[in-house]
């Protein structure tokens, strides 16, 4: 399980500034249960972008964006809509955003931040890894996470230690920043290399107090999840998309 929250719309709108045509991808896995990128949120995002003057060329919710095979099969019928877009906005965790960025020949932007739950990250067969930094930077870096792809987790560019494209720490590992450079070049997005980064907000990299003992996804809560504060009833068997801090702690 990766828990994600939608980024503030102003941030999303700011980096989509130069992109008139946008395709939206959501995820019916963790992002759906997080309430950040399921069918409902994708529909809402479509409306917000349209209201803000964007042309949404299409939207699709795929089950489990963390699997590149599912990304590709899920989006196969939407090739025309994706080609018509200048950018793809992905509402899901950092793994899913990177999987979509790898799979599509378009600049891909994160619509969510992935929140550190303090464990239970699960496993992925793909190479994409999410640091759960809570301040997704993937729009600067061609959809390759600098925190996990670079051994030093550098956000401002390469350290200069790479040899023949391999990391100075391990010759088995590609230099994450060279991967980012090549990706940005392929996607015609090299100007992103000049984005100035502010120091990371380290608080967001830490597990939040309420997340350490969240009952959100506790097995004890199944099949009867705690009642959500919102009026809308949760899907049968799904964890409640509620603010975990307001919930009663599980025993």
């Amino acid at each position, binding site marked *: 399980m990766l828990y994600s929250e939608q980024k503030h719309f102003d941030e999303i709108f700011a980096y989509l500034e130069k992109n008139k045509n946008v395709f939206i991808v959501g995820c019916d896995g963790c992002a759906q249960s997080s309430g950040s990128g399921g069918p409902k949120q994708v529909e809402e995002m479509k409306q917000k972008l349209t209201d803000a003057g964007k042309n949404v060329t299409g939207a699709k919710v795929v089950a489990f964006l963390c699997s590149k095979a599912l990304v590709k099969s899920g989006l196969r019928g939407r090739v025309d809509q994706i080609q018509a877009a200048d950018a793809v906005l992905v509402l899901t965790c950092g793994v899913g955003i990177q999987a979509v960025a790898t799979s599509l020949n378009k600049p891909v932007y994160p619509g969510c931040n992935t929140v550190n739950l303090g464990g239970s990250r699960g496993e992925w067969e793909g190479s994409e890894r999410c640091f759960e930094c809570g301040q997704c930077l993937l729009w600067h870096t061609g959809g390759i996470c600098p925190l996990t792809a670079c051994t030093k987790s550098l956000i401002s560019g*390469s350290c*200069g230690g790479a040899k023949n494209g391999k990391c100075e720490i391990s010759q088995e590992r590609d230099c994450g920043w060279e991967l980012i450079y090549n990706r940005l070049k392929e996607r015609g997005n090299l100007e992103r290399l000049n984005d*100035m980064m502010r*120091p990371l907000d*380290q608080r967001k990299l830490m597990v939040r107090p309420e997340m350490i003992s969240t009952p959100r996804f506790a097995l004890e809560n199944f099949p009867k999840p705690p009642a959500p504060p919102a009026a809308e009833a949760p899907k049968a068997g799904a964890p409640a998309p509620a603010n975990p801090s307001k919930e009663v702690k599980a025993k």
Partner: protein
Amino acid sequence: MSLQSKLESGQFAVSCEFGPVKGVDLHEVYENLEILKGKVDAANVTDQQSSIMRMSGLATASICVQGGLEPIYQMTCRDRNRIAIQSDLLGAWALGIKNVLALTGDMSARGDHPQAKDVFDLDSVTLLQTIATLNGGKDLSGNELKGSPAFFPGAVVKVENDTEASFELQIAKMQKKIAAGAKFFQTQACYIPKSFEKLMKRADKFGVPVMVGVIPLRTAGSARYMNNNVAGIYVPDDLIDIMAKAAKEDREKVGIEMASNLIKQMKGMCQGVHIMAVAWEKKVPEIMALAGL
């Protein structure tokens, strides 16, 4: 004349490396200080270079100030978070330290305390932003400072790049460092003037002084060691051969001549030279004399 005035007035500047001691015996530190003072414009005081624990650079740089050798205080982001970094910078200013070289730093895993926790709260670019923020009279959280420093911040760029991506990433990062406030650059050691020429073709346009890095070779073995273990350094085979063929008693002379020749070939392309004679600080004046500096 200070390093800043020299570089800003377009004069050729010379810096060297000045490594803090592992321990508290300062005899050699004072000895080197006397040899270098009045000869070089400034000396880089390294910050636990290669992640090898040594005396603090702040203390050593302060010793340099007292001894009349202008320090370039190297600061890495490996061991301190943004609170400690800002605090040390304010302390450095109070101790008369004006030049700061902002580096990300090597990881602890490569040094003599591989069990240590790496901090990297900031990196070289955000450290430069931090220095500029302090110079502007505020801390990183926007709080007003009581009196502000006026640091002369510098940064590093690598010359040897084996892929297009690596070269372009260096150029992009150099531009970011300038945007973040870097006022001068020192390069990693360069043994191939053609590579430096390639870098300077791009870097000249940025209008920020560049000091080319030179490390005098002592043996063929040390050159091979650097090729295998030091990030961003490449000593070509023909130079290694020259060292290998030199008779043992001539090696020192051959290495020093080679370094001064490299300086002669590259000094016309840039605004200064940075001589990194690690544990061989005494030889810096000789290298300078041979290079006509």
